[in-house]
């Protein structure tokens, strides 16, 4: 194939970082374009947030003193009404961000 002397040879090598970025965007198309932005930082600031209602807990403890305490369901976000969370049931602390940063 004849190459025009004036034609440039396309540089198809992209930086490893950009290649990784493309990989990530392919896996998570909903990922926002502001990675270091406020969402990520605010989740970082919220580390340690646990939704435990001491009022619910103490009232339920008083109500069912003699009965077996029902254990919290694995899905910890659904703590309402009859579900009695105990401090022992609180999820293990994760050192990194609480909510998935990949969630839209």
């Amino acid at each position, binding site marked *: 194939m004849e190459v025009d002397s004036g034609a440039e040879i396309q540089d198809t090598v992209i930086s490893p*970082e950009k290649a990784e*970025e493309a990989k990530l965007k392919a896996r998570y198309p909903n990922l926002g374009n502001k990675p*270091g932005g406020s969402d990520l930082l*605010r989740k970082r600031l919220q580390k340690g947030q646990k939704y435990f209602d001491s009022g619910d807990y103490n009232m339920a403890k008083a109500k069912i003193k003699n009965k077996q305490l029902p254990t919290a369901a694995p899905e910890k976000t659904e703590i309402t009404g009859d579900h009695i969370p105990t401090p022992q049931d609180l999820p293990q*602390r994760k050192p990194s961000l609480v909510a998935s940063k990949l969630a839209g």
Partner: protein
Amino acid sequence: THTHSHPHTHTLTHTRSHTDIISTVEFNYSGELLATGDKGGRVVIFQHEQESKNRPHLRGEYNVYSTFQSHEPEFDYLKSLEIEEKINKIRWLPQQNAAHFLLSTNDKTIKLWKISERDKRAEGYNLKDEDGRLRDPFRITSLRVPVLMPMDLMVEASPRRIFANAHTYHINSISVNSDHETYLSADDLRINLWHLEITDRSFNIVDIKPANMEELTEVITAAECHPHQCNVFVYSSSKGTIRLCDMRAAALCDRHSKFFEEPEDPSSRSFFSEIISSISDVKFSHSGRYMMTRDYLSVKVWDLNMENRPVETYQVHEYLRSKLCSLYENDCIFDKFECCWNGGDSAIMTGSYNNFFRMFDRNTRRDITLEASRESSKPRATLKPRKVSTGGKRKKDEISVDSLDFNKKILHTAWHPKDNVIAVAATNNLYIFQDKIN
């Protein structure tokens, strides 16, 4: 990079196991004591024993001197916030008398601990027996002066000050000022200045909280006082910048005196750029002329007189640049590595993955990768340098990037202030390496 004939040959003297993951390591000013804090809120202090007569060619060992529970887990019911007992940082105070003092902090509360020795006990009291029972005063017919008798050494740790309720966000740094009277504590958005004697008040000296949290673009990641100038401190950010502040200029140091940032090539910017530029640690050199910053892939040395770029950049594990996607997915990209200087500021050290840690000689520009693990280090044997293979062909003894264990991170390391002794925390094991004297 040369991996042979490194100027220092390191031997492992011993290891210690913590129950929990070690979260901070710090030598005191003389290097006699080494403090470690862990995820369970415990502090373990090691003391350097004098050289043994049998083995004069080895430096003495570090043995457990004191262990105490510094912080307990707490729950802030008002904010539904769980407060971890994990010790984020320990900083020693300079020694002024026989007792040793250190500051230890978790996410919310800083405590001043006094560690003192008791090796004498008074015996021969008049009013009570040796076992403590009160004597019948009417039976006492003569008076005696109690005598101080030697006893087995007891090391006691007692909390002398508790500095609480000054941080809304999570404390990432504490730093003792060179005036030995004040210290600073930094959280994600604010920095406070304390007096060591006063617990019910602290001065806010930096506040970067925006009026509208939606506009939040960066957080404070680390802060340190200048080693000699008690009016100067620096703080680093999640955007890879460092601000130097002068407390003589204003009470609130929101406006920096110097702003350090390396210019970035806009065409190379990617989704990961800002995340990997986030500075996880900042340390002044002992001389006070330089400072060092650690970001995800490199360590940079800055001359305090030059704000527009670092004077030296060292690649810690550049091969990870082509793994950023998976490192983002498994959260490793957010790991906060620390860095440290040796006593003479001629070498720097920082950790990596697979229990590897890296040392860079600033003069010869040589670097070395070593491993802190029981399998690869036998006591008193020389450490073998490690190499990660980046190309297609993997040489014998090299480890490929894909075989690295990203759960084995070395985030915390410390260098003795005078000697070639280093402490490396690998998960819940502490390794102490020393130079062979010969």
